[in-house]
């Protein structure tokens, strides 16, 4: 192997290694702007003099390589690639005077600004972290004395409070909130529940009054309540098709019977 060939080889290898290192490390970049900033370092010039055109080409080449290696690039890297391709064409082609919108130079200048700003923030962050830091380089008091909070509470009340308080007590008896007396009331839900169980045993017409629960017929109020509930429940069951209802005449006893399910 010739010495110069060898050298050429090592050059090529190191270049390839560098390129691949960049690619393999794609996960280490925090987005396309970070990648662009890293690529811009290879131009070895002040960020203000950077060639955005060259940078765009570098980036596009990087994306091409990544594709060749079948590395998956996040969408925003591809969006940036598309934008840089557009920028590149803007920069290369003579400006079309009829075309509105910013020129390639303006877009390039903004990108340069973004890169410079990001680089500046990086540097600022590094300077910040290099500062003396509390509990690392300088220290706060080790033995602290708590400030004792002596709480003194003073209570107040006005004469009005006093009189209103008294008025509240003295008028409490005339005032009773509206509460339904449930003890002597049967709800339709209760009656319905009851009848669903009983109806299965009733094959023939039966007076509705025989469905009234025991012990509810003595007191007139309870009797009224339970009759009404049972009647309402009967209507509900008839509506559901579970029973049939009939009444021979006005004020005649109301009779119900179980409805046989029809086949077919």
């Amino acid at each position: 192997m010739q010495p110069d060939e060898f050298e050429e080889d090592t050059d090529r290898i190191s270049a390839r290694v560098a390129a691949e290192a960049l690619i393999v490390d794609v996960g280490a970049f925090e987005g396309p702007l970070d990648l662009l900033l890293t690529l811009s370092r290879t131009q070895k010039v002040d960020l203000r003099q950077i060639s955005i055109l060259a940078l765009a080409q570098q980036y596009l080449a990087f994306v091409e390589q990544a594709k060749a290696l079948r590395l998956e690039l996040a969408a925003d890297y591809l969006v940036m690639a598309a934008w840089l391709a557009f920028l590149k064409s803007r920069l290369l082609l003579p400006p079309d005077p009829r075309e509105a919108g910013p020129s390639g130079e303006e877009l390039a200048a903004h990108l340069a600004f973004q890169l410079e700003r990001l680089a500046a923030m990086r540097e600022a962050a590094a300077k910040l972290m290099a500062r003396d830091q509390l509990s690392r380089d300088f220290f706060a008091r080790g033995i602290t004395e708590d400030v004792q909070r002596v709480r003194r509470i003073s209570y107040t009340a006005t004469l009005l409070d006093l009189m209103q308080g008294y008025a509240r007590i003295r008028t409490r008896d005339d005032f009773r909130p509206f509460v339904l007396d449930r003890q002597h009331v049967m709800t339709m839900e209760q009656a319905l529940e009851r009848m669903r169980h009983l109806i299965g045993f009733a094959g023939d017409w039966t007076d509705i009054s025989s469905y009234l629960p025991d012990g509810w017929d003595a007191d007139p109020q309870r009797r009224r309540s339970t009759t009404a509930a049972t009647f309402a429940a009967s209507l509900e069951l008839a509506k559901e098709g579970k029973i049939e209802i009939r009444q021979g005449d006005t004020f005649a006893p109301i009779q119900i019977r179980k409805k046989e399910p029809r086949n077919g």
Partner: protein
Amino acid sequence: MAKPQNDSLFDAPPMGEQERMVEAILFATADPVTVQDLIGRMPHGCDPAEALAYLRKRYEGRGVNVVRIGDAWAIRTAPDLGFLMQKEIVETRKLSRAAIETLAIVAYHQPVTRAEIEEIRGVSVSRGTIDQLIEMEWIRFGRRKMTPGRPVTFVVTQGFLDHFGLENARDLPGLKELRGAGLLENRPPPGTVPLGETEDDSADAGQSELFED
């Protein structure tokens, strides 16, 4: 002759620096520090005991002092400034509803026993409520009742009268006057705390109509 000693003397920082070091260590360390500790932490050849003496002198009469605690040293607040480490917070709170009602009953019905207060309020009166009112010096013990058990009674104090601008408890408006002043018309729904201010008269009227029959 004293060659080896010279070396270490040369190494050791000047006493002023040593004093600064001791100062910083005593300040930042969470526990009192022994001279042994200081020797271990300061550069070789230092004399922390001497530095401590200077530092102690420097803090004499200051707001904080260098004090010895057992065989260790610490910086502590000067004893005469301990009052700065206390902060008095005066909180003004409205008297609780239970206390106001109890107070009102004592004022209107005095002398009154605890059982009577409970009967009027319809709920038991906690020991704390009575204690609080006594501590505020708004009520005090009155004569014992000449009834079985000879229960103690409560009466309002002069302080109470002063606070509420009353000459005597009989000046308190009666029920009729309270009604006249519209104070009885305000019927708060049970369970709600707000008094007069938040009541809506018209809503009340509607409510009472519901129960009129």
